[in-house]
């Protein structure tokens, strides 16, 4: 048996030698590309997707690459990850997995990682990701895939650590990714520094200006954000993201009429958008009516969007649209009718993977809990939470987990069980509805500093979701309302943009 002191000395030496080990780790992960042409296409896709924000072009390039080499499993995996078409995401993941026998050992680990993630097997997905990252911490594709996946999982700290460890500070695409990571962590000074760097690396490219604008908007600097979007459009008038970005910014500024005009102009100018992009911005345009409390206008816009999604066989988008409609309804029956339509769309199952269908089902149940609480129907609250618990029990998916915790936290808050509610609401801390309840729960249990912090975060939130439209404007209006809750107002007063 080793003595403790021997162990201690050995361990200290071990920890000290850690940095030396890093230096010995490899540079780029080898890829099983057979031809120089496909290798060149891969580089092209990298520059287009990660640096220049030209997703459609990058996707086209990757389609070409896998057409030339259909057995290039890692090529299929990259396409699966960057594709904007749900059906293609599903089919390319299948292709990657089916062809993994042609891939090298490291590529196989990457494919395992995403296959496990798709199968709700989170721990094996994480260990596979870390295994391959440990071997190739400086590989740009790996760092890009990992930081992007972690952002999807809302694991921003881990994403930032991987970026910092990569040392890839001159890769424009990774600088861009890192800036968004820090912005999501509300560390805006770091995000702005990275944006300055991104602009300096690609001064003649619109994407850095577009990203800068979006991050400025997240921080609440609307006017400057619009300036940056306009600079991006001067560089490249076809950079559609910036045109829609201007509309999104007017929406968050509370100028709904101008926002709608800008959306109309953008849709007219860019008629050949990808379906998911089109649906995203149609949703934002429909949301303008919620900000105006115009239920009729919102219903008309969302219904048209649901029908469009249905016609395109995008069942998740259709379900999501009906779910969002249910959220702002004032009549319980109407909300339940819309949720039934959402559930029916998910059941149809067109162009959606099993994991995405389960995630959407969880979101619908979570909304059902909100509707039931609003109606004071505790039987429906209980049954919906129970169904959601069952769904969460059989998965280790972050989104399903958050939906369950948000729903249970809402249920417990409704019953004034604030102490029990806190742990669950914290697990759904990205949702404005949960955030608002969390602030109340903190305050009711005497954790005043936590309540103030949460309220400040909520007041500063600049998200384009329906949840934001339902929660944040009324919270901000507190500033002008003398009868508003004193604690909330006090927190809101501290908000500075």
């Amino acid at each position, binding site marked *: 048996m080793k003595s403790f002191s021997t162990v201690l000395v050995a361990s200290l030496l071990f920890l000290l030698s850690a940095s030396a080990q890093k230096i010995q780790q490899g540079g780029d992960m080898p890829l099983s590309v057979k031809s120089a042409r496909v290798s060149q296409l891969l580089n092209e896709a990298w520059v287009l997707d990660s640096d220049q924000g030209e997703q459609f072009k990058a996707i086209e390039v990757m389609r070409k690459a896998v057409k030339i080499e259909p057995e290039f499993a890692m090529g299929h995996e990259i396409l699966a990850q960057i594709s904007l078409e749900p059906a293609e995401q599903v089919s390319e993941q299948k292709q990657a997995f089916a062809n993994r026998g042609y891939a090298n050992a490291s590529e196989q680990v990457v494919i395992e990682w995403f296959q496990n993630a798709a199968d709700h097997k989170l721990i094996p997905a994480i260990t596979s990701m870390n295994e391959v990252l440990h071997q190739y911490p400086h590989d740009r594709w790996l760092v890009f895939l990992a930081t992007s996946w972690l952002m999807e999982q809302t694991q921003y700290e881990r994403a930032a650590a991987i970026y910092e460890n990569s040392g890839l500070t001159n890769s424009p695409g990774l600088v861009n990714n890192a800036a968004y990571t820090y912005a999501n962590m509300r560390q805006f000074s770091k995000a702005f520094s990275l944006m300055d760097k991104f602009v300096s690396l690609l001064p003649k490219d619109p994407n850095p200006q577009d990203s800068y604008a979006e991050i400025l908007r997240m921080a609440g600097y609307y006017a400057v954000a619009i300036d940056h979007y306009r600079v991006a459009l001067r560089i490249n008038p076809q950079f559609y993201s910036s045109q829609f970005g201007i509309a999104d910014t007017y929406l968050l500024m509370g100028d709904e009429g101008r926002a709608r005009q800008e959306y109309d102009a953008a849709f007219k100018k860019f008629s050949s958008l990808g379906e998911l992009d089109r649906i995203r911005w149609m949703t934002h345009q429909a949301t303008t009516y919620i900000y105006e409390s115009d239920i009729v206008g919102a219903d008309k816009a969302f219904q048209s969007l649901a029908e469009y999604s249905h016609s395109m066989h995008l069942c998740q988008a259709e379900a999501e649209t009906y779910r969002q409609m249910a959220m702002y309804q004032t009549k319980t029956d109407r909300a339940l009718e819309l949720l039934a339509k959402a559930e029916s769309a998910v059941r149809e199952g067109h162009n959606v993977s099993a994991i995405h269908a389960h995630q959407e089902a969880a979101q619908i149940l979570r909304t059902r809990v909100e509707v039931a609480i609003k109606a004071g129907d505790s039987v429906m609250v209980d049954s919906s939470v129970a169904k959601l618990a069952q769904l969460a029990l059989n998965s280790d998916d972050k989104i399903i987990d958050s939906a369950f915790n948000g729903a249970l936290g809402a249920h417990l808050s409704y019953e004034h069980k604030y102490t029990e509610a806190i742990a669950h609401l914290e697990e759904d801390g990205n949702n404005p509805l949960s955030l608002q309840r969390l602030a109340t729960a903190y305050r009711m249990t005497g954790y005043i500093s936590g309540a103030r912090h949460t309220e400040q*975060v909520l007041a500063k939130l600049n998200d384009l979701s329906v949840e934001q439209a339902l929660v944040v404007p009324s919270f901000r209006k507190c500033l002008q309302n003398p009868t508003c809750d004193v604690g909330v107002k006090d927190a809101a007063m501290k908000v500075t943009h």
Partner: protein
Amino acid sequence: MLCWRKLLLFGLVIAAPCLVQAKQLAVVTDTANPTTNLTAAELIKLFNAHTHTWADGKPVIIVVRDPASSDMELVLRKIFNMTAAQAQSFIEAHKPSIIVANSDDAVLRFVSTNRGAVGIVDLYSLTKDVNVVKINGKLPVEQGYLLRGN
């Protein structure tokens, strides 16, 4: 523009900033350690240096992050029930059976190469070089797991 398809696909659901981030921590041991599950009480005894050996007789070596770091807040609250300063003194008093590491990677390296070592890391730092120990029969990804929270 951030080119990441999931943010587009689920933009309305998950592409939200980190407002209140709940942590998920994993208890890890070396892969030769046969212990697969601990009760919360056993875990607390282990980390509070009341348990000195594993069931197979190997001595326990605990490796933790700096008690002053934000990564340790949940551990201090749920396992040590101490302030950062109290935990610092406790660790000093129990050297060398408790070791402080400066990162999750360092915890993992130490645990994977020292028989009897046990540590706590962020779920997303996990590697295949260690075993994840269940607490009260639950893995970190399961509802009701002890080491989850803000």
